[in-house]
């Protein structure tokens, strides 16, 4: 465990023998796996002992078809053909992908891709398995499936598991030992979970590290947070019968969506991967043209607005922050297109998000940790004080400090009248930040507890969006 940017991933990669060989940098000290000094060992010797699963499922699938991908690691270790033919279906079955052998990796959902990648990593039965935030990009159902498999591997007691994870509620019960790092990457303590909580709980919380109780405590809007609903006046976002398909003859990603959002309203869009959340955000942001229906933001069609006007009206944080970066340094990125006053306000914003310009200003946006990249992209969108703020999974990989800073900054924006529309898998964030929740499935809005909807709570919502700790 450790705050964002504390070097958790780097340590995981080092255990897998990828640092310093594949990740350049300075290396000191000693790291042995199974008696083998990883820094000086042959890559093959390390790979024979350790497997590593990364965060992003798409960038670790090598082969086109599922069975071929699982076999890839076995081929590299020169397994005989007969043994591979036995092992591949077995490994697929173990992660719940039995019968998926001929399927193409690119056609699977994010959760299925990550389980496929796990099957490929565990197929050669490595002695050590490193899992680097394996569920950070997944929806709750996908994350549960991966964690079920991790729990099985743990019970089998044949593999040493090194798990890097923010979800303390899921990770701690599985752990024999916990290593906590501070933000500089130095160890705070190495303890069994029970002792870690009793002896170091306060220090961990102070460092911004998530504790299991943070996830199980019910999240609710902070005291004094604005109610976030403007019933009077014209809505700032109006979506009428909007529909969108990415190509002719393809199933629509968004179907017949009706949605009105008032100034200063906070709305969470929830639903599984592929249910149309990101597409809806891009439609509202004027980045896609609806194939049917109409969309108005501030009384205008966002598609027709010139870019500078659109940027003042709408801010959007993409799910993959790297795709939104336009500057060469953090300072350049945050100041892009802003006047003097706004730029200095943006600097303060970054400071509140734990990334002061003195320390981060000259760094490349691409060289930040995942959590830092996301906070930077949130800050660039917030800096313009747009009237509508669209957020796509703003809390992925955030430590506790970043998460809380984000929530309180959103509170302030909403008070100034900004409408917030956030697509999120983070049930706690939805509960903390949003006054209204929209549930999507297969491109439909299947539930909306906003104004005009029934007063009854949405039935079934809790099954689709399991409470933290479930």
């Amino acid at each position, binding site marked *: 465990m450790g705050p964002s940017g504390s070097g958790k991933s780097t340590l995981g990669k080092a255990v*897998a*023998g*990828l640092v310093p060989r*594949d*990740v350049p940098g300075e290396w000191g000290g000693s790291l042995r796996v199974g008696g083998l000094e990883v820094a000086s060992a*042959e*890559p*093959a010797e390390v*790979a*024979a002992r*350790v*497997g590593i699963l*990364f965060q*992003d499922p798409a*960038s*670790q699938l*090598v*082969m*086109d*078809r599922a*069975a*071929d991908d699982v*076999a*890839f*690691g*076995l*081929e*590299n*270790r*020169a397994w005989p*053909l007969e043994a*591979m033919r036995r092992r*591949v279906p077995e490994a697929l079955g173990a992660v719940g992908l039995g019968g998926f052998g001929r399927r*193409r990796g*690119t056609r699977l959902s994010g959760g299925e891709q990550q389980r496929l990648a796990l099957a*490929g*990593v565990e197929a*050669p039965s490595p002695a050590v398995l490193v899992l680097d935030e394996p569920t950070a990009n997944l929806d709750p159902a996908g994350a549960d499936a991966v964690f079920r498999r991790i729990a099985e591997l743990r019970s089998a007691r044949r593999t040493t598991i090194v798990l890097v994870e923010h979800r303390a509620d899921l990770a701690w019960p599985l752990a024999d030992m916990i290593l906590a790092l501070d933000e500089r990457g130095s160890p705070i303590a190495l303890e069994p979970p029970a002792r870690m909580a009793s002896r170091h709980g306060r220090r961990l919380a102070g460092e911004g590290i998530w504790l299991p109780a943070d996830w199980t405590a019910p999240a609710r809007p902070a005291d004094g947070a604005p109610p976030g609903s403007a019933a009077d006046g014209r809505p700032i976002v109006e979506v009428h019968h909007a529909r969108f398909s990415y190509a002719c003859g393809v199933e629509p990603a968004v179907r017949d969506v009706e949605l009105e959002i008032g100034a200063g309203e906070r709305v969470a869009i929830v639903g599984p991967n592929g249910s149309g959340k990101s597409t809806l955000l*891009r439609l509202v*942001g*004027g*980045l896609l043209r609806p194939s049917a229906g109409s969309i108005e933001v501030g009384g205008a069609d966002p598609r027709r607005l010139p*870019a*500078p006007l*659109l*940027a*003042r009206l*709408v*801010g*959007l944080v*993409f799910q*993959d922050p*790297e*795709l*939104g*970066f*336009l500057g060469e340094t953090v300072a350049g990125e945050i100041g892009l*297109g802003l006047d003097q006053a706004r730029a200095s306000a943006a600097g303060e914003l970054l400071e509140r998000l734990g990334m002061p310009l003195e320390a981060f200003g000259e760094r490349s946006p*691409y060289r930040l940790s995942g959590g830092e990249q996301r906070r930077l992209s949130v800050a*660039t969108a917030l800096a313009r004080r747009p009237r509508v703020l669209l957020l796509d999974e703003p809390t992925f990989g955030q430590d506790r400090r970043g998460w809380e800073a984000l929530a309180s900054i959103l509170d302030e924006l909403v008070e100034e009248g900004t409408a917030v529309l956030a697509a999120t898998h983070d049930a706690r964030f939805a509960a903390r930040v949003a006054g209204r929740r929209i549930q999507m499935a297969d491109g439909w809005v299947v539930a909306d507890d906003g104004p005009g909807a029934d007063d009854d709570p949405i039935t079934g919502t809790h099954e689709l969006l399991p409470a933290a700790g479930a």
Partner: protein
Amino acid sequence: MLTPIELSDAQASSLLGRTSPLVKLALAIAWLVGLAVIGEPGPPLLLAALAVAAGLSIGRVPPGNLARGLAPLVLAATSIALANLLWAGANTDPAATELARLGPFRITREAAEAAGALASRVLAIVAVGAVFAQTTDPTRLVDALVQQARVPERFAYGALAAYQAVPGLAEDLVTLRQARRIRGLRGWHPRLLLGLLVRAIRHADQLALAMDARAFGSGPRTTFRPIRWGWPDLVVGIGGLAVLALALRI
């Protein structure tokens, strides 16, 4: 164009589907070399027709798929031929036989013959290429290159992984443009290509890391999909050469 071609089980188990991609590749090259030495428009058209017929019969390519693959290329071939017909040097040669006059254009027999020969050759190249692509699974092509042609594994499987990343990069380009617009900048700018390059390099980096972590290139390797020479290779190879010889004789 950018998405990898998907072969149905029927296509994969057809005669052309079971033929080693190397045999098909060698035949395609032989045909293309043969076409280069033919001046007449007849033989290339015959080869094009035979390639399409083979794709549909012994390749079991669905006609719709083949038509979709061919349509843009045929259009391109037609426009090349038309341009060569209208702006050929022969048209201004007073000695050339005039066939017709279309407004400002004088069309001569010599220009028409040259354009016809060119068009038929381009069509044949397009047809052979489309049939090859529609009967060959990319993974199988790379397996054959490694196992039968001894192409270095690191290069071959790296290229395959890169090829499979192309559709993802096309999506990234769309998002990069959207990111510029939402930040108040115009959609197209040379910097976009820089962003895409950064993206491609980082993707390649991550993929290389994932491949290394799975012991790729660490020593001798076995294969999960062995490819062996078989009778389809012999039949298709000899048949293809016979057809070429026939076409060259006409």
